[in-house]
C-alpha cells in the first residue's frame, strides 16, 4: 500500500509541523488557524485507519464549531503580544524541565511497552471487522448498549455546562424595548387605522 503510506507520512508530518506552529506562532489568530490544520490532518489519519465516522465528526465538531468560536474570541481580543511574551523566558527553564521529565517518562514507557497477554481477553469492546459492519454502526452499537451510562452522563454534563453559561452570563437588562411578535401580529386594523374626512383648509 504505497499510497496509503505516503498519505500517512504527509498527514503525520503536516500534523506535527502545524502543532509546533500552534505554540510558536506570533499571532494567536495564526495559532488557531494552525490548530485547524492540525484537526484536519488528524481527521485524515483517522480516515487512513478506516475510522471514517470519527474523522468526519472531528471535522464537524472541532473544526466546524469549536474552532470557529475559538477564532471568534481570539479575533475580538485586543492582546498586546509583546506583553504576553515577557514572562516567557522567565518560565522557560521550569517549563522546559517539566517537559523534559514528561518526555523521558514517555520514552521510558514506550521502551518498556509490554502488553500483558491477558489483556486481549479482557478488552472492553473488541472492534468488529471493518468489512462486517460500517464503523458508524459499530460505534452506535456499543455506545447505546455497553456505554449507555457514560453516554447519558455526558449528556448531563453538557446540560450543566449550558446552565452554567446561562447563569454566569445572562443579564436581563431593564428598559430595553423588545419586539413582541405576538403583539405585532394581533394588532387589528381598527385599532391603528382611522379614516377621517378632512375638510378643505380645516386640518385634522
Amino acid at each position, binding site marked *: 500500500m*504505497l*499510497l496509503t503510506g505516503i498519505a500517512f507520512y504527509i498527514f503525520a508530518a503536516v500534523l506535527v509541523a502545524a502543532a509546533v506552529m500552534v505554540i510558536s506562532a506570533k*499571532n494567536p*489568530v*495564526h495559532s488557531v*488557524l494552525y490548530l*485547524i490544520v492540525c484537526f484536519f490532518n488528524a481527521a485524515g489519519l483517522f480516515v487512513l485507519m478506516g475510522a*471514517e*465516522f470519527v474523522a*468526519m*465528526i472531528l*471535522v*464537524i465538531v472541532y*473544526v*466546524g*464549531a469549536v474552532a*470557529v*468560536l475559538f*477564532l*471568534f474570541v481570539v*479575533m*475580538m481580543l485586543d492582546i498586546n503580544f509583546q506583553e504576553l511574551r515577557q514572562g516567557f523566558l522567565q518560565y522557560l527553564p521550569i517549563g522546559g524541565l517539566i517537559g523534559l521529565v514528561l518526555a523521558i517518562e514517555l520514552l521510558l514507557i514506550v521502551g518498556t511497552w509490554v502488553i500483558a497477554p491477558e489483556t486481549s481477553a479482557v478488552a472492553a469492546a473488541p472492534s468488529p471487522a471493518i468489512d462486517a459492519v*460500517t*464503523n*458508524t454502526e459499530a460505534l452506535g452499537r456499543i455506545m447505546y448498549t455497553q456505554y449507555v451510562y457514560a453516554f447519558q452522563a455526558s449528556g448531563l454534563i453538557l446540560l450543566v455546562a449550558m446552565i452554567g453559561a446561562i447563569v454566569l452570563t445572562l443579564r436581563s437588562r431593564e428598559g430595553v424595548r423588545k*419586539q413582541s411578535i405576538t403583539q405585532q401580529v394581533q394588532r387589528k386594523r381598527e385599532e391603528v387605522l382611522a379614516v377621517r374626512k378632512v375638510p378643505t383648509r380645516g386640518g385634522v
Partner: protein
Amino acid sequence: MGEIWTTYGFPGVIIVAQILAVTVPLLIAVAYMVYAERKVLAMMQLRQGPNLVGPWGLLQSFADALKMIGKEMIIPAGANRVVFIFAPVLTMVLALVAWAVIPFDLGWVIADINVGILYLFAISSLGVYGIIMAGWASNSKYAFLGSLRSAAQMVSYEVSIGLVIITVLLCVGSLNLTDIIVAQSGAGGFWGWFFVPLFPMFVIFFISALAETNRAPFDLPEGESELVGGFHTEYSGMTFGLFFLGEYANMILMSAMTTVLFLGGWLPPLEMAPFTWIPGPVWFVLKIAFCLFVFIWVRATLPRYRYDQLMRLGWKVFLPFSLIWVVLTAGVLVAFGWLPD
C-alpha cells in the same frame, strides 16, 4: 514500470477525468447561474436584464469573468497578506470538493463513501472559515463586522441543518447518499420522496440553506446599506471573483443537497413511460435548477431580515421545532415498526 502504471497511473487518470467531468460543467453552470439570476430578477422586476453580449446576453458571464481576471488585485496596506489571499481560495475549493460525493445517478459518483452526508455537512460547515479569514485579514471594520455576522449566522443555522439531516437519516438508516436516494424510490413516484412525509423539515432545510449560503433574505453579512460589501469589501479582481464563484457554487451545492435529501435525487417523479425515458442525471439537474429558481424567487420577493430576527428564527423557532420533529420521527418509526434495518 508497467505494474506501477496499472496500479496507480491508470486509475489516477480515470480519477482526474472524473473530477474534470464534474468541475468543468459545474463552473459553466455557475456562469449561467449568474446569468439566470440576472434574467429572472429582471423579469420579476419588469426589466430586460443582460441582453447585449452574445444572443440574448448569453455570453454576459464570460465577459464579466474576463473583466474580473483583467482587473488589478489590490491588497490593502495592513492586511494579513497570506490569509487575505488564502480566504477566497479556500471558499472556492470547499465549494468544489463537496461535489466528490454527490451521486448524479446510480453509481455516477466520484467517491461513494459510507459517511457521504457527514462529509457534505463537514464541508459546508467549513465554508465559514473563508468568510472569517477574509474579514479578519482585511483589517477593515466593515469587513470584520460582516464576517462576524456571517460566522454567527452560519453556525446558528448549521444546528438546524444537522437536526434535519438526522430526521432523514432516521428514515434511511444509512449515511450514504446513494442509499438515501434509493430509499426514496418506489412505485409511488414522488409520493415516496422525503419532502412528502418530512415536509416541515424540508421547509426548514431550505430556509436554513438560504441562511447558510448568505442569500437573501439572510444576506446580512454583505448588507450593503450598513456594511458596504461586508466581508469582501476590500477584495477586488479575481480574489473577489473567487468569492463570487464560491457563493454561487455553494448555492448549487445546497440545491443538490436538497435534491438528494428530499427530492429523490435522480429518480423520475413517476415510475411510468414518458418519465422513465429521460435519464437520471437530467432529472437531477432539473431538480437542482428548480431549487435554484426558488433561491432567486425568494431574493426577488422578500426584504432582508433584521439581525436579531435572524438569530431569533434560528435559535428560538427552528432549533426547538426541528428537535421536536426528530423525536417525533423517531417515535413514529419505532411505534409503527418502520425502522429501516
